[in-house]
């Protein structure tokens, strides 16, 4: 547990403060912050969807299922397009 906390603190430090004298050629991993901000509302959405009332198991699963389906569609579209355009290379 303590170790995990340590890692979390390190991760936060790497975002918020300069930890070294020499420069990391990739800069600070600010993406943790940005992706966190982008996806944070989604977490709220899932919490609200699963915990709020009125609730219907059917509709909630439909909702979650739809979101995951669209995510898979998005990823498959990228892979599919890559595969399709691969015939030119």
């Amino acid at each position, binding site marked *: 547990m303590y170790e995990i906390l340590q890692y979390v603190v390190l991760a936060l430090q790497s975002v918020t403060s300069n*930890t070294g004298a020499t420069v*990391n050629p990739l800069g600070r991993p600010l993406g943790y912050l940005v992706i966190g901000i982008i996806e944070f509302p989604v977490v709220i959405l899932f919490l609200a969807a699963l915990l709020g009332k009125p609730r219907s198991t059917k509709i909630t699963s439909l909702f979650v299922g739809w979101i995951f389906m669209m995510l898979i569609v998005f990823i498959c579209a990228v892979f599919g397009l890559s595969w399709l355009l691969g015939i030119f290379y």
Partner: protein
Amino acid sequence: MSKMNRREFFKKVGVLGVVVAMNSVASNMKRVGTPLLTKTVGTEYPPPVKGANYGMMIDVGACIGCRLCQHACKLENNVPDAPGNIHWIDVFELDNHRPVSEVENIPPVGADIDYTDAPKPDHWYMSFNCFHCDNPPCTKVCPTGATYKDEDGLVLVNYDICIGCRYCMAACPFNARRFNWWNPEHPPSRISTVDGSVVTLNEDVPLRTRGVTEKCTFCVHRVRKGETPKCVEVCPVRARHFGDFNDPESEVSRLRETVRTIRIRENLGTDPKLFYFTRGVKWTEDGEKH
């Protein structure tokens, strides 16, 4: 697998996943503060030299603008002539009345400047290639990690995973990167523009396809075997100096002790490793001769 076992299995996998993720965070922590990073797939290049930090110094006072470096580079690195004439090195002609701080004013990439009568009086020449920055902006933005800074300070491109978004080119403050706009043609042999000999394809250098980015590698295939880059070798006036800045005995380290140097667009904090200097009078602030 029984139900209980399966649950335990997933539990273990879950814990493992967390541990792996944490470790990757931790190894990232270690990377901060060390001037090295990530190569994503197996390399076509020789392994990096441990502890080295390669850089180049160019004597703009000595340079006569002959462009031998540019042509030798093209032959050495299988840079195509057609279609789309790519140069990894650009040589620009400047005059005494143009301050160096205004490099924005330099002539276009591939401008047709006649150097046959170089060095022209009152003119001086400045050559550009990739600056192999210590803090390269191009590696940060790359969405696939195709361009990366290796442990010996060389900024390289993995042509196999470049998707050709040209984001690195937008990020580069020096226009050092080149894009393969066309499918490059590689004739089996070319007549050298340097000495007229017949030059075949260099097997040490991977060929590029259309749609990927490329740039000066400091002749990584030579440097990592202990040789100097081709442009340094062919320069007739020894204007180019190459070496390891981490080695205090190297030529460039000793030069840096003795001459005054400047770097281009240093204010951007990219820490370029291409230093310009001259032993002449042109750049001294107080007009003293050196």
